[in-house]
């Protein structure tokens, strides 16, 4: 009798096991489907407008057909480079402070709270703030700003990157076992050196992922750029002038009455996504080359 009871229980467990597996697979599919649909839609509507002109020409003047988004692609690159230069070092630095030097202090708790709030601020608010602080001339405290410019756009995006980079850096550093820190200190390595050369290095794959997440997130931001970088129909790589950006150009063309320009907007969105995927993959490839056999 007890044998049949055991058998029943074991069968029940097998059924539960299969059910949960099926549910997990379904959930995975649910995650992938929207992504695949978006990508398919972009290719369907945008791929036909992708030609050499798209990558080499600036937008055509009002009323004319043709033209491209070359200036917007380059502009996005400039803005994202600026944002990364500002956002990544400050984010990683503050994350290191939170996890290693300021752990448990009031200052660290205040910074962590501020970062979490900053993370929840809508991007349009971030744009208005950047506009009020660095674009409007009479409030400006920085001598080289005071008007729409690539630099102000980079600053707005950079500030948006800080909280994500900061918090992932902190989380990743906290995941480094204390035994690793003690090993370094036990060798007579000063604490600051141990933090920079051992702890941060051990956590670096996770920290890089955090930076990539922040990068990909701001790469598609439009709202903060409306008030700062403004957009530009012509070639410009000057940091002190308004600059074009892919999301801005997509926004302008998507609202256009001309079908030709609407198709260009789809193509722009496709290019934006592909470029983000390429950039993230490139960073992953470059940073994974130094990883050793068996490294965890």
């Amino acid at each position, binding site marked *: 009798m007890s044998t049949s009871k055991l058998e029943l229980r074991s069968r029940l467990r097998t059924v539960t096991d299969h059910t949960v597996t099926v549910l997990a697979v379904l959930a995975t599919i649910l995650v992938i489907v929207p992504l695949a649909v978006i990508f398919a839609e972009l290719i369907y509507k945008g791929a036909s407008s992708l030609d050499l002109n798209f990558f080499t020409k600036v937008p055509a003047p009002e009323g004319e057909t043709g033209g491209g988004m070359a200036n917007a692609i380059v502009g996005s690159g400039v803005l994202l480079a600026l944002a990364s230069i500002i956002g990544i070092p400050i984010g990683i630095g503050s994350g290191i402070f939170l996890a290693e030097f300021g752990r448990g202090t009031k200052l660290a708790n205040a910074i962590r709270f501020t970062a979490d709030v900053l993370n929840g601020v809508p991007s349009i608010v971030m744009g208005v703030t950047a506009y009020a602080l660095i674009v409007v001339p009479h409030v400006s405290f920085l001598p080289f700003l005071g008007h729409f410019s690539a630099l102000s756009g980079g600053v707005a995006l950079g500030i948006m990157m800080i909280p994500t980079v900061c918090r992932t850096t902190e989380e990743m550093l906290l995941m480094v076992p204390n035994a690793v820190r003690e090993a370094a200190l036990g060798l*007579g*390595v000063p604490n600051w050196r141990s933090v920079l050369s051992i702890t941060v*290095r051990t956590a670096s794959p996770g920290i890089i992922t955090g930076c990539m997440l922040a990068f990909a997130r701001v790469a598609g931001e439009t709202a903060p750029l409306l008030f700062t970088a403004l957009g530009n129909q012509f070639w410009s790589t000057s940091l002190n002038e308004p600059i074009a950006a892919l999301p801005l150009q997509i926004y302008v063309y998507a609202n256009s009455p001309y079908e030709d320009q609407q198709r260009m907007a789809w193509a722009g969105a496709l290019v934006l996504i592909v470029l983000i995927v390429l950039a993230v993959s490139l960073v992953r490839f470059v940073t994974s080359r130094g990883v050793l*056999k068996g490294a965890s």
Partner: protein
Amino acid sequence: MGVGIEVTNLNAWYGTNHTLQDINLNIPANHATALIGPSGCGKSTFVRCLNRMHETNPIARVTGNVRMGDLDIYQDASPVEVRRRVGMVFQRPNPFPTMSIYDNVSAGLKLNGYNNRHSLDEIVEKSLKNSALWDEVKDDLKKKSGASLSGGQQQRLCIARALAVDPEVLLMDEPASALDPVSTSKIEDLIFQLKSQYTIVIVTHNMQQAARVAEKTGFFLNGRMVEFDSTHKIFTNPSDKRTEDYITGRFG
């Protein structure tokens, strides 16, 4: 060459918990000294006071004197200087996971600004030979991560890493407790060889291990050192009843 360690009136606390009370003992140079006692008796805290690792915990406090050779480690030196003279091997092997075997061994030197490539090569080879790991890893020094080795190999890698900075004292906090018997006996052989060059202090739960490797043994109980004598005396004819109870397995 190792130096002797003279501990006078050492007291240590974690918060309000008085974990070490009035410890006095002389650890002889170039010998292995074993510390035994039940879990939580303060052995680990004691060795962590010998390289000032105890104070890395913000709630920890320590008073008393520890002399290593001519150096009073709490008066005359910074924690960093002390730890350069005192190597430590931990209970669980803790190689730097993202570093190669070579970088693990040379880490202590490199991170202290020592960068002579040629002599680094020599030191790495010598340290790995001293920790009996050289033959097993010499072909993968820069190819494999320290974390890819087996547990026993990792622990010998950690010993090599500690030896590379040329310490005078080697502290080992239950170095073999996470290892299988074969790796354990390798570590014990190693301690036997190393004690001619270093002063070794080893914490262990394994009394046979203490008897095998150490000339002197100290018995800790409830934060106090009950007895400190030659290993032979402790295990055959202890003066204190509590020591006898512990080694005969009546408690702990």
